[in-house]
């Protein structure tokens, strides 16, 4: 029985699989192949999407999206590949669009809404990309590295006058 790393490299072209340490495998994929990779891994038993996160790599001009997958052992299965898979993909900062993974993993829905709100990434095909945490619209999404929080606080909160009796 071949390991999950061999299975991934056998099935996909141009995919980087690297073992970071025992129990953590990094899979770097192109953004076009993301959905098929996730589909393939789900069929291999990695049915639990733990987290969708984003890293703003401003020097390289990309957003790096991180999907963390893990698996449960069912029905007396022996633990051979009890690793977490860290699936990474890149989208350009100028045009951050990506196809949604809600159809594969339903749990991705609130994570993608959060990323849309905090980083401004547009997930096409998402059922509702409405605001999740923030009370009002902010022009630049606040978790981007070029968002100046101090300037924002001075403009929005410090400019409000104290109440004089």
């Amino acid at each position, binding site marked *: 029985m071949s390991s999950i790393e061999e299975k991934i490299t056998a099935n996909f072209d141009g995919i980087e699989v690297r073992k970071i340490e025992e129990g953590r495998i990094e899979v770097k994929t192109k953004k076009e192949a993301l959905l098929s990779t996730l589909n393939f891994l789900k069929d291999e038993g990695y049915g639990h999407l733990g987290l969708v996160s984003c890293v703003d790599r401003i020097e390289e001009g990309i957003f790096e999206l991180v999907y963390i997958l893990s698996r449960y052992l069912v029905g007396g299965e022996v633990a051979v590949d009890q690793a977490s898979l860290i699936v990474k993909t890149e989208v350009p900062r100028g045009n951050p669009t990506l196809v949604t993974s809600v159809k594969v993993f339903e749990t991705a829905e609130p994570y993608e809404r959060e990323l849309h709100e905090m980083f401004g990434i547009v997930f096409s095909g998402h059922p509702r990309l409405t605001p999740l945490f923030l009370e009002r619209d902010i022009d630049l999404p606040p978790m981007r590295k070029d968002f100046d929080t101090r300037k924002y*606080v001075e403009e929005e*909160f410090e400019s*409000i006058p*104290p*109440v004089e009796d």
Partner: protein
Amino acid sequence: MDRRQLIKWLKEPLKMSNKYSLHVVYFCTGCGIIEIPPSITARWDAERFGVKPVATPRQANLFLITGYVSLKTLKPIIRTYEQMPAPKYTVAFGSCPIDGGMYWDSYNTINHLDKYIPIDGYIAGCMPRPEAVFAGITHLWTLIDEGKADGYKKYRRNYSQYRSNQERLYGELGWPPRFETEGLENE
């Protein structure tokens, strides 16, 4: 009961009973709520001071805001404050409602709570221990005695300023003005 206070009880029974039966509504924002269970349970029994948590703001006369206030929680805070019957007192808890505390440059934490609702007293600390809560409450007694804890009157007097500050933050508020805001048109 302190016998020296007997005259006060006969002169101003309403004020004295207000002072010694503070019914508290805790607004559990942030980390300050961790200090509340020890202060209201057996070890630092808060009912020694007449402080008692209640279920709804409509029965309360002391409003404790425990911790930082984010933009989203300020709205329920304003609504809770406006639902409480007068006389009502507010105490902000910890350093975050004073000036933002460690969240002073966060995009989502309003820094000065007293721009939006009146605050009668602050308990400084990050977080204040139950002893500090009781020191704050006994100090609130003296403020009530001297008539200085009049934030609810200030709210009524300057309601147009408070309302315009709230509207600057949110745009359109989802509820009608609590009092007359005739001052707004002149500005």
